[in-house]
């Protein structure tokens, strides 16, 4: 981990990875979405609206996954005072907020045909909304504190504290009886993980999900590289002003 | 006789916002001395004091408080800090304020005696909110004297004081120094003739 500590190494490595990430993201998402929209059958109950699932479920997964990523980056930043980890957490947040927003929007669009309403105050829906607020709050802390080191620490503390929301999202369906679907893509059956939806739907779904993950890392690397460049320019400018 | 604590700083620099207030500043305050931090407004006197108190992280450099040559583990409990703000609660009386400080920071002297030393006996049971500026400052200084830790960090201790108050404060500072205490004060005036001067800008 620490080998990639200095920005130089990170810039080299991410520069080499980026084309592959883009390629994988576009390829997987392209195939997955094509399969989802045209190749798979419509649901016998829900009709074509089921196709929203191929965006909704991956973005819901990404919303939690990115928060988890930020959590780890924040812990690394807090414990090892690693500036690159702070940058990673900071730059991941807006991407995570976008996926969360996508989950909320697709979910409520899906809700209208299936539940008859765009929004209900159900535990899972509310906890995703709360996760969205958490992203906003995290970004707000970065924006509110001018001193970068201070902002990084404050935001990291917030991120670590807020992580309890993730299990709540995961288990809310089981704890509270809600309208929302329980885990139905994969389930524990007889002590084994078993897929419970038809493979013709499962594969495209997984492809989009993996594609989204690659997309996330591609966007993250681009944002981090921009941030590093921006900070370099700032340093150069202050040095010039001081001279 | 208080435990002699030496304050040493090396290569200190301080950043506020994107400005460097001072760089590569060294200081050495030995027990039994008064060091005066001088410099124009905004040069970083208060910032330096807060840095010594551990309330502000130095951008670079090291700071140690050492007793008999051994660096201390818990510097916060060795010093008392009198800032620009008096840190008094307006809704509590002077005595209540001091009694709380005695509990929270520990104290070697009696609150009433401390107030008496600064001529505040008559106001001891008045809420601080009613105090005049000078009475407030006296109470804050009384707290410092009552807590009685070896290192005193004073930020303009005599501001708002009349001549009697100033005399009392200078007196107590002198006594603490004579007693082996370490006093570092930021000020725009001469507190005690012969104090070492540390210029921040």
């Amino acid at each position, binding site marked *: 981990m620490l080998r990639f500590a200095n920005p130089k190494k990170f810039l080299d490595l991410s520069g080499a990875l980026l084309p592959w990430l883009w390629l994988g993201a576009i390829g997987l998402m392209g195939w997955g979405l094509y399969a989802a929209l045209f190749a798979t059958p419509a649901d016998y109950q829900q009709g074509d609206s089921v196709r929203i699932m191929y965006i909704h479920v991956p973005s819901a997964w990404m919303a939690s996954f990115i928060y988890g990523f930020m959590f780890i980056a924040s812990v690394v930043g807090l414990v090892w005072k690693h500036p690159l980890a702070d940058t990673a957490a900071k730059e991941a947040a807006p991407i995570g907020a976008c996926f969360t927003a996508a989950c909320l929007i697709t979910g409520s669009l899906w809700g209208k045909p299936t539940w008859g309403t765009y929004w209900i105050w159900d*535990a899972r829906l509310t906890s995703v909304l709360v996760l969205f607020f*958490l992203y906003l709050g995290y970004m707000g802390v970065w924006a*509110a504190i001018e001193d970068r080191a201070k902002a990084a620490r*404050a935001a990291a503390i917030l991120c670590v*504290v807020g992580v309890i929301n993730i299990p709540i999202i995961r288990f809310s369906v089981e704890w509270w009886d809600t309208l929302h679907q329980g885990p139905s893509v994969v389930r524990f059956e007889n002590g084994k993980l078993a897929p419970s939806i038809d493979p013709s739907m499962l594969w495209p779904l997984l492809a989009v999900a993996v594609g989204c993950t690659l997309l996330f890392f591609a966007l993250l690397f681009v944002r981090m590289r921009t941030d590093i460049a921006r900070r370099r320019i700032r340093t150069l400018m202050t040095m010039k002003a001081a001279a | 006789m208080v435990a002699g604590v030496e304050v040493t700083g090396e290569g200190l620099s301080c950043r506020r916002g994107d400005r460097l207030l001072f760089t590569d500043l060294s200081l050495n305050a030995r027990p039994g001395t008064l060091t005066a931090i001088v410099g124009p407004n905004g040069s970083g006197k208060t910032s330096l004091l807060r840095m010594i108190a551990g*309330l502000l992280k130095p951008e670079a450099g090291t700071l140690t408080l050492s007793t008999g040559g051994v660096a201390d583990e818990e510097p916060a409990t060795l010093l008392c*800090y009198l800032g620009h703000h008096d840190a008094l609660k307006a809704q509590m009386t002077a005595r209540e304020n001091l009694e709380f400080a005695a*509990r929270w920071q520990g104290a070697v002297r009696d609150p009433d005696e401390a107030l008496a030393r600064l001529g505040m006996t008559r106001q001891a049971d008045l809420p601080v909110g009613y105090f005049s500026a000078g009475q407030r400052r006296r109470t804050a200084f009384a707290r410092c004297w009552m807590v009685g830790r070896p290192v005193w960090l004073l930020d303009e201790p005599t501001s708002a004081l009349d001549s009697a108050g100033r005399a009392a404060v200078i007196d107590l500072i002198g006594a603490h120094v004579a007693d082996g205490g370490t006093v570092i004060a930021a000020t725009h005036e001469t507190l005690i003739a012969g104090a070492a001067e540390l210029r921040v800008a």
Partner: protein
Amino acid sequence: MSAFLALVRRDLLLSFRIGGGPFLGLAFFLTVTAMLPLGVGAKLNLLGEAAAGFLWVAAALASLLSLDRLFQADAEDGSLDQLALGALPLEFAVLAKAIAHWLTTGLPLTLAAPVLALMLNMPEAGYATLTLSLLIGSPVFSLAGAIGAALTAGLRRGGLLLSLLVLPLFVPVVVFGAGAVSAAINGFEPGAAFLFLGAVSLFSLVLGPVAGAAALRIHLS
């Protein structure tokens, strides 16, 4: 220990002298319960079913709206510096202040809960559970809230941020707290909800002071 208690006492004293201490909290809750039936229109049975939810939400709001001053007054008048230079670590200062905050917001509500529930026409089966759940759960509002208050002390847009920050921490408590009461009213065992509330409470008892002190240290420097 004496230092710790001294700080709790000081904060209680200040809250008494400034706002009437727990009585302000009581007045607040009485206000809410007095206004609600008037606003909702006295559909009593409708009220009764929802009473536990209201009281829990009111508790969360009362805490939320008083949290932003938790460290701000101390930061403004220099007292925070003195708190940082005490004989105890800053963690204890945060804990003491959170306790004092709870004693003036959470506790009065807990004690008055049966009366308020009566006013809102809640079924009697829920009284004991309501009181107990508030006793166990409401400290979270002060303890976890202290983290938000410390993070936003002195910040621009602090107030807005504070609500965004603590809301995610408060929501589950409100849900489980109100859930416990409605379980009890409907004749179920509220045991699981109590366990959850207790766990969150204990968790925030540790996390609140630690994270709060870390956040305060950032602002001090």
